[in-house]
């Protein structure tokens, strides 16, 4: 049985594959049947894999003329009711931002993979980075909520890709899958099919009479039912601010109500959205907060510190946005200091400082195109744990 069959049937099998390969298989398992992309290092393997996989499952792969066209085609396919994804890296992620804002505002589900590489600008195409955390949250203009997931292993890329589709469909929101070049091209053993199968979240579709249907009126769950083209509703979708009827409006009350609902929508579904890992945090004097490959190094750093009898723990957001604020506060309740190792100049540290208020927060910031090592972190954590 090949890996693609496994993703389709949900039967469990272990394979040695790269992170980008796992992403492509996760997408198929999640029900993704449309991919539009543009070649960019280090994400191109996702497109290359899906160019082969999608035709086998009655899906469509298309290489578009540029990054903007790719996200536009993905949103267009999703408007038609198909689960759709694109994948890119830094420069392409910048180019896609306007249309990611469209997907957020018009509430069109889609998944955008950003394999982070060194920046700014063309930067270091073959070197890892974690410098797009803020862009994932705030990259498009205007005020809008978004979901971003940060897997830390090849196995987690597989499972989080599946979760990204489930959340996108459930919340009618763009979901960004953020990981770095290291785990994108690292090969690890993954148990495929473990979270696959057919029991996936489906979008809420409009039903009932056309005369009373309002495409942006929501139930208590804050999620409006989408009108499937061809089902007879003939609704209008626009990037302009719109009322519950879907048509443009600048009525202050209608604009406020719709944007407020957009934010409430993610708040209402935090149980499904939130995901984190807390390792040895209960008694920790020092808590490390890290994501992705830096969290892998931090896991080892915790072990190194614990063997020295130092009480060091790790808090790892898997869902980065919305940020798991309450979980971080709980995990650091006993901590007297927090360390944030990250491959940027301090993006995650800024968030941690804001959430934790008075607790001292130190950063380990590496932006040389190299990954942070366990010893980089354990040395600082051990010194801090001995000092406080």
């Amino acid at each position, binding site marked *: 049985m090949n890996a693609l069959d496994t993703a389709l049937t949900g039967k469990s099998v272990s394979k040695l594959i790269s992170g980008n390969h796992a992403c492509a298989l996760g997408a198929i398992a999640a029900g993704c*049947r*449309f991919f*539009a992309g543009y070649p960019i290092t280090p994400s191109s393997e996702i497109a290359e894999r899906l160019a082969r996989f*999608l*035709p*086998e*499952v*009655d899906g*469509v792969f*298309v290489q*578009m*003329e*540029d990054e*903007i*066209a*790719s996200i*536009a*085609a*993905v*949103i*267009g*396919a*999703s*408007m*038609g*009711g*198909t689960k*759709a994804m694109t994948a890119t890296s830094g420069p392409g992620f910048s180019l896609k931002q*306007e*249309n990611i804002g*469209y997907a957020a505002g018009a509430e069109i589900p889609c998944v955008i993979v950003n394999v982070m590489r060194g920046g700014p600008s063309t930067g270091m195409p073959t070197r890892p980075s974690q410098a797009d955390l803020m862009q994932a949250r705030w990259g498009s203009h205007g005020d809008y909520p978004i979901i971003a997931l940060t897997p830390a292993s090849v196995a987690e890329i597989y499972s989080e890709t599946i979760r990204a589709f489930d959340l996108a469909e459930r919340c009618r929101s763009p979901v960004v899958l953020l990981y770095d070049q290291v785990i994108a091209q690292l090969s690890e053993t993954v148990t495929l099919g473990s979270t696959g199968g057919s029991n996936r979240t489906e979008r809420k579709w409009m039903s009932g009479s056309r005369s009373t249907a309002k495409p942006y009126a929501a139930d208590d769950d804050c999620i409006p039912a989408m*009108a499937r*083209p*061809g*089902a*007879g*509703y*003939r*609704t*209008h*979708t*626009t*990037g*302009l601010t719109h009322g519950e009827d879907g*048509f*443009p409006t600048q009525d202050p009350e209608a604009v406020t109500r719709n944007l407020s609902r957009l934010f409430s929508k993610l708040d209402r579904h935090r149980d499904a959205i939130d995901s984190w890992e807390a390792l040895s945090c209960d008694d920790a004097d020092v808590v490390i907060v890290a994501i992705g490959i830096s969290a892998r190094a931090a896991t080892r750093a915790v072990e190194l510190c614990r063997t020295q009898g130092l009480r060091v723990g790790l808090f790892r957001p898997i869902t980065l946005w919305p940020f798991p604020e309450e979980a971080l506060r709980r995990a650091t309740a006993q901590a007297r200091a927090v360390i944030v190792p990250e491959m940027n100049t301090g993006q995650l540290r800024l968030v941690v400082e804001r959430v934790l208020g008075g607790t001292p927060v130190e950063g380990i910031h590496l932006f040389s195109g190299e990954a942070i090592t366990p010893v980089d972190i354990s040395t600082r954590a051990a010194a801090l744990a001995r000092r406080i």
Partner: protein
Amino acid sequence: MFIDSAPGFDIRDYLRLEMMPHFLCPGCGHGIALRALLWAVHDLGLDKDKLAVVSGIGCAGRLSAYIDANTFHVTHGRPLAYATGLALARPDLHVIVITGDGDCLAIGGNHLIHACRRNLKLTCLMLNNEIYGMTGGQVSPTTSETRLTTTTPLGNQEPRFDPCALAAAAGAGFVGREVTRHVPKLKELIKAGLEHPGFAFVEVLSDCTEIFGRKNDLGSSSEMIMRQKSEIRPSSYRDTLDSPFRPNDLPTGILAKNDRPEYGTTYRRAAALQAGASR
């Protein structure tokens, strides 16, 4: 009394009447183009439920909201890219793109040439009014030389695009141009575009009376429409493509046509072969 020159066609059957009055200026040619499009849809008996209209930003982009179909008003310059995703994912839908000269040729120019090359079944209706009307009258890629706009106070120094020559050169399966003065001819051209199995590019020479016309002292809407007569000639494109570019000589009618295979069909056929071989 409502007088209809097209027996059996009532435009109100295809409009969202609750959206009236529309926002177009008096004298704007876009309403005529919209009527011709809906008349063509009616003539072909297309099912409104299966009709998807994708439009960009600008005066032309706003037209989708008035059409009683599945309508998508997307980002500036990108309607062809959105429509590509929609048409590939949903080959059962009939997808029409409505765009303007700025939307289609400036910010969205890359998508146009690749849509022409790809030859996916889409009908692209480009309403050319020579100006960015909605933003107040800035120069566009089709503004005639020497014309005054808010951003060409010295008179436009750039030559204009010939969109149909561009589309034909990029390989579009169907290319045509018509003026709003000839509504039945425009309807027939759009109809032929809608019936074309691949990518169809239809340019409509519209007029912007309020902003472009006023700035250039071009007179009333009817005077502007009549002036187009001096710039157009019915012809095939072959002689134009083979001769030096003449920006003020605009042939109309069906200008290019080929029967290259439609992209969605060839993709699905190749996919079925691969899926069959691997099982």
